[in-house]
């Protein structure tokens, strides 16, 4: 392939249909989360949730080259990952509404959203909880001689958990096909990464595990896709794990109860001006992958999917309370 320096990696590397689909997923994530927010306000969703609005490029670009056989482990801020990996927003809404048709049959909610069939092993309510699990998934692939890889999403806050250290070390010594993707959105809840983490970039810590570490602009779809392309190739070639750090930002508060006392309006607005979706969309148009009308159509498609999803969820049945202990154990073993 002839490298054309002025053309971003993603445009060179992916077919137009793939790029269009990526844009669709980014819109879908944004619209899904806006829809979830609205449903929450209207009392259709209870509990809490963690929105990833502003981080869509990171989710979608990271999953760009993954197949359903490849696995991801996700986080409490996992809606984007779930959609990026191929989940259906109707079943996601149904889960958030606590319905039997939801991905977790209403037992998990936002914090445990999963879609095992598309390789999403689940969001996780425990910060850092998915890190060793991802390493285990990669171990399975290696032991069973499969070539699937596992992508482990985690946040800047999670990188200070002991689980991070133990997981990266084991992945490295066993050369496992896992890619650790840190979504560094500058804060773990209210705590700045600059306060909580003793190094400037999370990727600096890759050296402690003799693995490659790279920090990229997480709002630049192509930059993320390229970093993942390299890391996935390395993993599939049996050369072991990598750490990729996507610098990004969440526009919303940490969760539904955030008074937002730790970020300035200026900072938030500055980051909103770097909207990853608008950026990617402009890029696609600039490189002739789509025209403006085509982009509108993509967005409209996503909008329709969200509207349909909400309707599906609303119309779905809730689990019966007699089933409170169902799924604790396998049926046959119950």
């Amino acid at each position, binding site marked *: 392939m002839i490298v054309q320096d002025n053309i971003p990696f993603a445009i060179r590397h992916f077919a137009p249909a793939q790029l269009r689909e990526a844009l669709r997923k980014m819109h879908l994530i944004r619209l899904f989360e806006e829809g979830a927010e609205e449903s929450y306000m209207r009392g259709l969703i*209870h*509990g*809490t949730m963690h929105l990833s609005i502003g981080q869509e490029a990171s989710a979608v670009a990271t999953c760009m080259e993954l197949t359903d056989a490849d696995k991801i482990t996700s986080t409490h801020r996992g809606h984007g990952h779930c959609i990026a990996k191929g989940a259906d927003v109707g079943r996601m809404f149904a*889960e958030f509404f*606590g*319905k039997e048709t939801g991905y*977790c049959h*209403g*037992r*998990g*909610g936002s*914090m*445990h959203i999963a879609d095992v069939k598309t390789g999403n092993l689940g969001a*996780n*309510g*425990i*910060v*850092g*909880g998915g890190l060793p699990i991802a390493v285990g998934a990669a171990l399975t692939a290696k032991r069973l001689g499969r070539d699937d890889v596992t992508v482990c999403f985690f946040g800047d*806050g*999670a990188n*200070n*958990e*002991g689980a991070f250290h133990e997981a990266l070390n084991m992945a490295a010594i066993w050369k496992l096909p896992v890619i650790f993707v840190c979504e560094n959105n500058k804060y*773990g*809840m*209210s*705590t700045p990464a600059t*306060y*909580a*983490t003793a190094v400037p970039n999370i990727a600096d810590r890759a050296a402690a595990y003799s693995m490659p570490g790279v920090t990229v602009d997480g709002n630049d779809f192509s930059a993320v896709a390229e970093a993942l392309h390299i890391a996935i190739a390395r993993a599939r070639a049996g050369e072991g794990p990598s750490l990729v750090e996507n610098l990004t930002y969440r526009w919303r508060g940490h969760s539904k*109860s*955030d*008074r937002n*006392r*730790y970020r300035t309006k200026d900072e938030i607005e500055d980051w909103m001006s770097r909207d990853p979706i608008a950026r990617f969309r402009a890029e696609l148009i600039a490189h002739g992958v789509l025209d403006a009308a085509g982009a509108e159509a993509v967005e409209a498609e996503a909008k329709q999917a969200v509207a349909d999803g909400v309707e599906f969820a609303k119309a779905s049945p*809730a*689990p019966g*309370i007699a*089933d*409170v*202990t169902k799924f*604790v154990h396998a049926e046959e073993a119950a």
Partner: protein
Amino acid sequence: MNAQTQITEVTPSGETREMSYAEAIRDAMAIALDRDPTVVLMGEDIGTYGGAFQVTLDLIDRYGPDRVMDTPISELGGAGVAVGAALTGLKPIFEFQFSDFAALAMEQIVNQAAKLRYMLGGEAAVPVVFRMPAGSGTGAAAQHSQSFEAWFGHVPGLKVVQPSTPEDAKGLLLAALADPDPVIVFEHKLLYKMKGQVPTGYYTTPIGKAAIRRTGSDVTIVASAIMVHRALEAAAKLAEEGIEVEVIDLRSVRPIDRDTIIASVKKTGKLLCVYEGVRTLGVGAEISALIAESEAFDYLDAPIQRLGGAEAPIPYNPDLERAAVPQKADIETVARRLAKGEV
């Protein structure tokens, strides 16, 4: 900061003020920070954010980041730092954001804090307090809704309390801090907004003493944390039917106040234990067992009943979530049947 180890005495004023459970805890911490310069608060997002449940709220503004320390998301290490600090002269109050995350720190709490005095033959002390927001009912699902008091109650070297009122939340926290050994304080998330009259100034509520919240002669209910309130509601309802329920607020899981419970059961002859933790091997198992082995055994007129959490993780769906832990109606039903000799 300068070394300054004497404790400033604050005289209790004899007055009370209406406060929420969360405010009462905050008041206790402020008093502790005022009177003892070795007290420090530690935990995730307890500073500017004010804590996940807004319990520390503005304490960082009043006491600064050296006394109100945000910790990285490092539960094992954070708890261990608190243990090491307690071992050497500070009195840390460490907040877990949710008690579920204490699962990451069992090593430091159980293998270190609880045992250091003993392993070192009395030559060391670990005066640390761990605050644990616990319980279900917030739609936060299986990893944010657990009740681990039975785990800690099983560990010698720890004390474990579960305040159910604002007054006790303050008094037990101050008692925990005054205690020379590690104390675990379970705070129920659904109680944070509950209001009540709370004495102003410094006072302690003794650890290890249950409280009789309602007297009655027909059935004894021993309940803990939020279940105390559900039991009281059930008792009020049953009183209308002429059934007099004695409601004991357990308050302390370790040590357990055997005497109060035994005396009550000797009077009523009937015991129902109500707790939110998983039924099997939960707090009610111990209460049942201590009665069944005590002199109260001979006074028992009916099998000892337990109402505990379902044998399942806490589900997300709100109806399932409610079904997973005892509700007022469940308590009412079982207590009624017990009173009527139907079990």
